């Protein structure tokens, strides 16, 4: 039987379907006419009615729900077995995951195990004749490559926020099928001993309508207090460049970029950030970028709508004060 249709491996965090899963479902919908079959979602762990409903209202016509002991939290060797067994049942042509910490780990393990072809961190996917075409940034975002696969089974991870989710349609119909899987425990080699979650304070970086990010040019951790102050006035969150996180001035969870978070706020204010392609990979989807940098030739200005050439020590306090006044905060 030739493979048909699309399977989206859902990500569920804190009992909720992650936005990137909704984005994958929207993409699946777009590709479905050319790939035949349907749009299905695979939900692993404790799959609540709300989760199933959220998947269906965002485009899944079928939900494969898999719950078994040991699947509540991500375990790569167990999840690979689940994905394998559900793929054997659903026979999809294309499997989509998010380019998240789980997708980054699970997609290559599952794909090479199943001898499927794989493209990761895709910003576009299409169908060209009998082949699937995937566009992904390479060379740190300086270029993009289009790859093609004619294999019976292709897997892809999509970059968060590269595709737009469809609005929830509460009238949509879908079937939920409980699938029982058998996990061969002797193949579960990688075992989690401990989770050290840092509770994010306030607004999540990925959800903030305004993001103020600081770079190495700030010179140390202290100036981030000033960025926090500005973020409070504007109702935003603070991010950072990798140089800053590497130096330990901010936690890694604040890193924006290729190997950090992807943000698409209405307003992204980059303070003392040079705008390296790997940084822009995480923020170029922002609707408006504003840069404060003392070097007028800095790359950041090439992607900015507004810019001030100047030292942040002079520009930022006055900017913050004026924002406070204008916002009456």
């Amino acid at each position, binding site marked *: 039987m030739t493979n048909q249709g699309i399977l989206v491996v859902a990500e569920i965090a804190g009992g909720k379907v992650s936005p990137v899963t909704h984005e994958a479902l929207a993409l699946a919908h777009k590709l479905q006419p050319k790939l035949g079959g349907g749009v299905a979602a695979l939900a692993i762990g404790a799959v609540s009615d709300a989760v199933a409903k959220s998947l269906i209202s965002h485009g899944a016509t079928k939900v494969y729900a898999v719950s078994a002991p040991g699947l509540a939290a991500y375990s790569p060797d167990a999840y690979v077995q689940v994905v394998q067994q559900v793929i054997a049942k659903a026979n999809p042509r294309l499997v989509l995951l998010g380019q998240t*910490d789980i997708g*980054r780990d699970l997609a*290559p*393990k599952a794909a*090479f195990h199943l001898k499927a*072809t794989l493209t*990761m961190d895709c910003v576009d996917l299409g169908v060209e004749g009998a082949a699937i075409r995937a566009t*992904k*940034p*390479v*060379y*740190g975002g*300086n*270029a*993009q*490559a*289009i*790859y*093609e*696969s004619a*294999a019976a089974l292709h897997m892809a991870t999509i970059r968060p926020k590269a595709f737009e989710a469809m609005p929830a349609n509460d009238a949509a119909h879908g079937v939920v099928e409980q699938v029982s899987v058998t996990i061969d425990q002797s193949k579960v*080699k*990688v*075992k989690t*001993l401990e*989770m*050290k979650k*840092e509770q994010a304070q306030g607004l999540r970086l990925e959800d903030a309508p305004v993001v103020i990010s600081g770079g190495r040019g700030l010179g140390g951790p202290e100036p981030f207090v000033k960025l926090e102050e500005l973020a409070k006035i504007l109702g935003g969150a603070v991010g950072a460049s*990798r140089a800053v*996180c590497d130096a330990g001035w901010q936690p*890694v*969870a604040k890193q924006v970029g290729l*190997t950090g978070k992807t943000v698409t706020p209405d307003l992204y204010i980059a303070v003392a950030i040079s705008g*390296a*392609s*790997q940084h*822009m990979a995480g923020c170029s989807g922002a609707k408006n970028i*504003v840069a*404060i940098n003392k070097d*007028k030739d800095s*790359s950041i200005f*090439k992607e*900015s*709508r*507004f*810019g*001030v*050439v*100047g*030292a942040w*020590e*002079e*520009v*930022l306090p*006055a900017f*913050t004060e*004026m*924002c406070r006044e*204008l*916002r009456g905060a």
Partner: protein
Amino acid sequence: MRIICFAKQVPDPEVPAASFKIDPATNKAAPVAGVAPVINGFDLNAIEAALRLKEKHSATVTVISLGKNLVQDVIKKPLSMGCDELILLQDDAFEDGDAASIAEALALAVKKAGQFDLILCGRQASDTDRGQVGPAVAELLGLPCVTLAKGVETGEGTVKVERVVADGTEVVEAPLPALVTVSNELGEPRYPTLRGIMTAGRKTPTVWTAADIGADPGKVGAKGRTVSTVKLFIPQVEKNCEFIAGENGADAGRKLALRLREVKLI
């Protein structure tokens, strides 16, 4: 203990976007005049992890690198940092592979290299930005695989890894032999010492061809690809930046806020 590291020579990823060009003949980044290639940054983090283990547990570290036009000074850097042995996979048959076909060659080389306890490699190469070769090698060799390490510690027949996850870290354990991909959160790779550079200078890398590792020519390099490249292009992003000037920095800052209010951004 024997540790194997993978190291890839890549174009310097920090070249400014303005000097980045594509060579249409090779469908790859064109070399930038005067800018030398480097070892992939995450691979240096993996080597740093290996050397920390070497210091603690007296391990030997073997580095395997597949590539063409390798620059001696660049590719020997792991030796000058303190690694013991360097194996180069050099053959036209290895050229232009994708993750599957590069992994095939690396896995065969690992088998030929003999007994080992741990493979450490980078989380992703900074040219492909792919993050696939590590897990692919693990699958071919039937090894447990842990990705995105910021800390690696070995115990009796096990490896304990602190992994970077979305909002913090996670500690996992796997039996040895295993493959671990390493991220920059591990910390800065050490600089080669003068003595290290001298020792490296005296060492000759082992060179293996496709025949040496017993590769099926249809499974490595361009012939072994499962995914083909249709096109490589530079996306156009140029926006016209409106520069806000003022009498001084503070004045410009105030004017910026006023302008942002005008366009309803704040």
